[in-house]
């Protein structure tokens, strides 16, 4: 089966979808339950032409109110070049804030828009070869949208990243649709599949990447979920060297209180 047929098949299934859990590689505008005061970690294995990279970030959100969330992301990174020794350490620290701008609720459905601000600090070491940190401060300003009902759920987030030291700015965008494989009930045992698109555009030089990310999520109870996603590059424009072959994500979210 070629890639286009796979995409058509996945889109067909998503049109038959009902509601679902939180998306895997796209953000959700619902800051409740596992997306509220839960800890999230997603191990990401990246296979590139000239190296393999493993990133293990831990994300800790905290709800100030039901409309306002703050948090931090602490990534640990291992870079293993094919022609050299592995380098590892804590990478750049990110803090974030999300604020609900709009909410329209109905019976078993909701539409929400959040503003999302992130600040990344150059805390990762750059003296090593290859570097673990970017050495750059990055400020992200964006939005998160989601329309969730008992019949379908669609998510999107997009935003602009300003970078210092004359490095290129970027625009990133993500879309997600989820499919529940089990009947929607509460308390839940859910098995969900996701089809997600993850895009990133760098302005100088102009490079554009888009990944198609089918994923699977298992929610055995109220406080815990397991998820995995396989990210396939479908666009890698103007990237001459060290293209990405694929990415694999395996993660969990755990509600603390």
């Amino acid at each position: 089966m070629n890639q286009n047929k796979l995409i058509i098949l996945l889109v067909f299934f998503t049109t038959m979808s009902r509601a679902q859990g939180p998306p895997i590689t796209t953000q959700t505008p619902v800051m409740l339950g596992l997306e509220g005061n839960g800890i999230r970690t997603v191990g990401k294995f990246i296979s590139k032409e000239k190296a393999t990279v493993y990133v293990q970030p831990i994300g800790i959100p905290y709800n100030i109110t039901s409309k306002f969330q703050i948090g931090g992301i602490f990534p640990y990174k291992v870079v293993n070049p094919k022609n050299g020794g592995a380098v590892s350490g804590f990478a750049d620290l990110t803090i974030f804030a999300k604020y609900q701008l709009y909410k329209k609720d109905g019976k078993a459905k909701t539409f929400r828009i959040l503003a999302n601000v992130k600040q990344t600090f150059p805390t990762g070491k750059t003296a090593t070869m290859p570097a673990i940190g970017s050495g750059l401060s990055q400020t992200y300003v964006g939005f998160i949208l989601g329309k969730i009902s008992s019949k379908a759920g669609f998510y999107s987030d997009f935003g602009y990243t300003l970078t210092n030291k004359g490095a290129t700015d970027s625009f990133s965008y993500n879309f997600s649709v989820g499919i529940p494989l089990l009947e929607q009930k509460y308390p839940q045992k859910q098995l969900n599949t996701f089809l997600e698109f993850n895009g990133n555009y760098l302005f100088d030089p102009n490079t554009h990447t888009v990944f198609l990310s089918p994923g699977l999520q298992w929610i055995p109870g109220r406080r815990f979920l397991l998820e995995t996603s396989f990210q396939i590059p479908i666009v890698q424009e103007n990237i001459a060297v060290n293209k990405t072959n694929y990415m694999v994500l395996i993660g969990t979210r755990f509600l603390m209180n």
Partner: protein
Amino acid sequence: MNKLAAQSKMAGIVLFMMLFLSFSTEIKAQNSDKEQQEQVYVKAEIKGMACPYCAFGMEKKLKEISGVSNVTIELKEGLAYISTLKKQKPSKENIQNIILNAGFTPGKIMYSDTPFVKKEVKKD
């Protein structure tokens, strides 16, 4: 003679046990009726509760209401059911504020002296 006395004694014990069980079941039933009479049942419409993983926050907040021991969520209907003692009956404003603080939009709040009939029978 001794055998007859032992049989009579045994019959007496069995009769006593039967009477005791019968009375205790009756008392239990009366207590259950009394408890039910002292309970107030609340049905709350909760708008925006579209996903099971976010209903957990709502359930937690409803359990924080004084006297509430059980909460049932009907996700597809957007409903929550709680019961509490009549003397601890929560006001509509109290329930509405709890729903708002949990991140949802409150709809109708209904009270009843008898349990509501639920479409989804999924109890915590």
